Each structure stands twice: as C-alpha cells, then as structure tokens.
C-alpha cells in the first residue's frame, strides 16, 4: 500500500455515520474512496454543496457543479447547495463534524501550519483558517517527513493556520493525538516500531505503554 492510500484509509476509520465532513485538496480528497461500507457520511464542498459524489461519468459533468478546485464532481441524492455565507456558517459554526486537511507542519502542541511559506509559497489561506478554527474535529493527513525533515516539529516556524490545536494527525508512519495538549503517539504504521517513528520525529512525543499498529 502506498503512503497516500495508507493515510487515507486510516483517516476514513475516523468517520461516523451522519457526520458532515469536509475534505481538503490532496491526500484528504482520497479519504472519500475509503468510507466504510454502510456508513452514511455527508461530504461538504466549501464552494457550496453538501452531498458531494464521485467524478461524473464521461459526458455527465455539468460546468456549474465542481469541487473547490474547480474540477467536475457529481452530487448524491439528498444533496443541498448554498451560498458561501452559509457554507462558512456551517464551517465556522461547528456544524462540520470533521475536517481533513493537509499540513506543512504540526507542532508538539497540535498547532498546524499549512497555508504559507514566507517568500516562497503565498497562495492565500482560502478556507483553511475557518475550517481549522471552526470544525468540531480537525484531522491532519500528511506525510510524516518531507525531504528527510520531520513535519511533526517541536514548534511551527511557518505561520500558523489557527491558534486552535488540531485533534489528530495521521501520517504514513503514525497516528498522533493531543490528550492534555501533548503530542502522543497513538499508533504506528503496520510493521513500524516506535523507535523507528521517533527517529524521524522532531517533536517530543508522549509514548503510552502500549502503542498498537494501525489496523487497515
């Protein structure tokens, strides 16, 4: 299983029936492919839709029905559309149960940086700040390290997305949560030992007595 698939499958296990879920661009988008059978989950696209469905079949796409990246999507029976004020009312108002976002850095306190590399990448935050500030549960789905450097850092040196800490980080190597505000290693990827995760993790992680492997 490649890293992205592993992350997406593990994140999908966090979904519960009835959840309203917002998936960011990149790895988070893949999560929709692994929703457990029988689970009724509502996916929100922040450009104004609840009930996002898969990419439409050839010739079935409509130019006025796209995801937040402008790519054609479909809508499921029971879908609802709305304007951006409503869409971000849902997000900031705590009506989105789970948001899954990519990350550049997450620090030991759970703070996320994912929208800017000063002087290098200044695309704008789009909906990320509202999502991290307002969603009931924030899950970061990202590679554990990039170019050999840990993305789980002691303290973010990139600009923060929100003062509100995230709830869960799922990487290709580990699941990290923040009980009591402290980064804690909850699971390792199949076949990985705790020491192997720690070796590529900059942040200090609390290690419970038992750290199970992800079940995928």
């Amino acid at each position, binding site marked *: 299983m490649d890293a992205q698939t592993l992350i997406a499958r593990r994140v999908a296990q966090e979904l519960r029936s009835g959840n309203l879920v917002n998936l960011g661009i990149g790895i988070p988008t893949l999560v929709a492919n692994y929703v457990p059978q029988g689970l009724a989950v509502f996916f929100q696209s922040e450009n104004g839709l609840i009930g996002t469905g898969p990419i439409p079949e050839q010739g079935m796409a409509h130019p006025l029905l796209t995801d937040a990246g402008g790519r054609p999507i479909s809508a499921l029976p029971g879908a609802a559309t709305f*304007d951006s004020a409503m869409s971000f009312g849902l997000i900031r108002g705590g009506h989105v149960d789970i948001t899954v976002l990519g990350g550049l850095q997450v620090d030991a306190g759970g703070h996320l940086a994912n929208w800017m590399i000063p002087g290098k990448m200044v*695309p704008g935050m789009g909906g990320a700040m509202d999502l991290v500030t307002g969603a009931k549960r924030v899950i970061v789905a990202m590679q554990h390290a990039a170019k050999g450097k840990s993305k789980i850092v002691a303290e973010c040196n990139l600009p923060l997305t929100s003062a509100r800490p995230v709830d869960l980080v799922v990487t290709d190597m580990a699941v990290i949560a923040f009980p009591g505000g402290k980064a804690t290693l909850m699971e390792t990827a199949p076949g990985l030992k705790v020491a192997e995760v720690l070796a590529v993790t900059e942040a200090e992680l609390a290690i419970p007595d038992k750290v199970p492997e992800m079940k995928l």
Partner: protein
Amino acid sequence: MKPVSAEEAIAMIPNGASIMVGGFMGVGTPDRLLDELVRQKKSGLFLISNDAAVPGKGVGKLFDGGQVTNMIGTHIGLNPKAQQQMLGKQITVDLIPQGTFVERIRAGGCGLGGVLTPTGVGTLVEGGKQKIDMNGKSYLIETALRADFALVHAFLADYIGNLAYALTARNFNPVMAMAADTVIVTAENIVPVGVIAPDHVVTPGPLVDYLVANG
C-alpha cells in the same frame, strides 16, 4: 432593473473602480462581463473576488492583461500570473480567510459595520486589527466591505430581475448582489415572471440595477 447590453454595462465602469466579481475558480462568474472588461481595456481595477481563477479563465483574464491594481481575495495559488504580479509588487493583494471574506461582504450589503470572528486569532491575519475578548474567547473585528460595482452571474433571471442560481455556481454571487452601489447581472436564462417561484428566488429583483440582455 434596466436591461442593457454587455457593452453598455461595462462602459459604466470607470478605470480605477472597485468591482466585486462572483464565482469560485471561474464557476459562477459572469464571463461575458469579464470579456467586455478586457475588450474595453478597463485598467487600475480594484478586484474583490474569492480567487484569481487560472490564466485565461474567469477573473484570471483580468490578470493576463495587467488590468488589476489591487485585489482582496482568499486564494490565488492556481494563477501563476497573479502570483508573479503580487510577488513582483506590480499589484497589491490582501489575502484573507474565505469565511471572513464572505462575512465582510455580507456585512457591507446588510448595513452592518462588521462582524466578530474567531478565525485568524493568533495568526498573521491579526495584523492591525482590533481584538475583542468575550466570554473567554477572542475575536477579531472584521469590517464591512463594499464595492462600486458587483458583477453577478445567475442561472435564472426573470423580467423584473429576480435571480436563482444553480449548484455550486451560487457561491459569492448572492452576497455580492447586495454589497455594491451598482449591481450588474448576467444570467444563463432570462425567463418570464413566475418561472422562478417566490420561495426559490435567492436575489429579489429590487437588488438588481442592470440585467444584461442575452444574444
């Protein structure tokens, strides 16, 4: 509401005007008005738009010819020209959170001075803003935003200017239709009064100043 041609509509916009343009990555954008802005070579525009779309599409066309001087938006990462112009300091771009963007416009249209939002607290977005603590939570005061012109795209418009939108093309259009001194609308379909049922009207006709006639 007054029917006009796209040419007449855009001729009303002076160089240097502030314009709000509906749409999200080019979806729900009034393309005919943008094409006409390009054709009439309007310059020095203050663009208020969620994003910069991509070169050649939607509001992206305005960056292709350097017609934008200032922008307030939320994301321009998919338009390299807009990025270059910003990093090269040919244009100033104020990038703000999307929820804040839409609430500032809504406030402008609804006669509010602004809103208190938790979004941006503890981040770079705080810069220069007043912060208020209430019940143990911090909020930024985000002020109302209006424009000289709103360029709005609807799916249906009836003869008196009632508007309805389709699918994800609604996005910022209804809030912008309330927040500008002059509101200019294009619609994919212009239909008789009554085709849009009262409960399905999203933007009531009295908000629309000009409806662009279809060809």
